[in-house]
């Protein structure tokens, strides 16, 4: 059975909601609090918030923003951006945040993942991996897609699982923000490498993209930004999420077996 999750992932820059394409050209999309409230009211499965400006500013996600958000929403929340040590992880989780998203300093992060897993459990860690396709091969990039790593993708994913990571969000930089659909080949390539949930991210344009992913791969979780903040070809800003009925249909379709009564 597949337990489907469809997760909006929102980018924050200098306390505002932004969205770009292929990790570049970020435009102002709106107010954070308004957006998260709408997603909570629309019963989004979860929510991921990443601060893309914190790494540059050598800070981590603003705790005051987290405090305010936590008062507005009653769905699981993941926070990422500039997290380098267990102290920062603890401060974020202490606000009632369910998971932290770790990226960038790849080597260092294996230790941090291990420390976090021992204290808060593996389920509290999502490792984020950003990849680019070059000559039919996939390469890991870090620091907002600017630096290329020499790590092998499959090996690195296995290392993350061994370090105690709970989930992996795998983003296709080539597809991010393009609404061209998920990179099915990428997810097929890595789906059998680990038993962890892998969240596909990059390229979703609507329900059709999610169905295409779930039909053609073993992946059961997917995330999107543009699809949930823009509407139409002209990219008018409109916070949206599948209606409950539509969502129930998708979930039931992939779920299979029912629970016995008892």
């Amino acid at each position, binding site marked *: 059975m597949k337990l489907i999750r469809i997760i909006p992932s929102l980018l924050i820059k200098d306390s505002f909601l932004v969205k770009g394409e292929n990790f570049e050209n970020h435009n102002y999309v709106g107010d954070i609090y308004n957006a998260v409230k709408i997603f909570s009211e629309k*019963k989004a499965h979860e929510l991921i918030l990443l601060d893309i400006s914190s790494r540059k500013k050598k800070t981590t996600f603003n705790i005051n923003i987290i405090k305010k958000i936590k008062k507005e929403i009653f*769905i*699981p929340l993941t926070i990422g951006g500039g997290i380098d040590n267990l102290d920062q992880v603890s401060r974020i*989780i202490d606000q*009632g945040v*369910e998971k932290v998203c770790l990226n960038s300093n790849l080597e260092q992060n294996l230790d941090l993942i291990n420390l976090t897993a021992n*204290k808060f459990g593996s*389920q509290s860690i999502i490792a984020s991996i950003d990849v680019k396709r070059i000559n039919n091969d996939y390469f890991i990039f870090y620091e907002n897609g600017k630096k290329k790593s020499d790590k092998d993708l499959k090996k690195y994913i296995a290392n993350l699982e061994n370090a105690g990571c709970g989930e992996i969000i795998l983003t296709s930089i080539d597809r991010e923000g393009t609404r061209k659909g998920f990179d099915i080949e990428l997810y097929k390539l890595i789906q059998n490498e680990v038993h962890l949930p892998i969240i596909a991210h990059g390229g979703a344009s609507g329900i059709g993209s999610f169905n295409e992913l779930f039909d053609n791969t073993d992946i059961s979780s997917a995330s999107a930004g543009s699809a949930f903040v823009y509407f139409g070809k002209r990219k008018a800003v409109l916070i949206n999420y599948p209606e409950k009925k539509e969502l129930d249909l998708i979930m039931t379709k992939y779920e299979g077996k029912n629970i*016995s009564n008892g």
Partner: protein
Amino acid sequence: MIAVIDYDGGNTKSILNVLDRCGLDYVVTHDENKINSCSKLILPGVSNFSFCIESLKKKKLDQLIKDHTLIKKKPFLGICSGMQILGSFSEEGNVEGLNIIPGKIKKIPVNIAKIVPHVGWNKVNFRDSLITEGIKNNSRFYFCHSYYYEPEDPKHCFMKTHYGIEFCTGVHSQNIFGIQFHPEKSLSEGMKIIENFSRY
């Protein structure tokens, strides 16, 4: 007054937001006197089992929880790892639990479930109880865990979920409730569970 037990191993903030939203009186504490003066106890939890048990022991809360649940018979709600510590033994770290509702905490079999941890909104089939009043059977709740509770006495299981295998996701014995999913992250149905418990 509800005591939300604070022991470094919980995710108290989320639960407090829900208690606030429901307008319930609570105190966040690990102080013996304060806990004594409360009529109900909530033990939240998101952390690793052995870390949870160690933190409880360090704060001398292990015996206190036993006294309040087994002797004083106060209504108790354990959430996620706060539920699992009620068991006798956990495969997560191979450590002993508080043995309040005897049972083993086992790893979800990866070969059958395929993807572990079990994360997401899954259906819960329950036997009617005080805390499920007004909730439709087979409603979805938010799960996030790799281990599950197998009570020694099947009668203690009052909630079940299917994820590759069928396992127990709620234990109940008299005044003591433990639930594997997170009511504090499960929208209105989750809030209903907390409200029901507060009326116990």
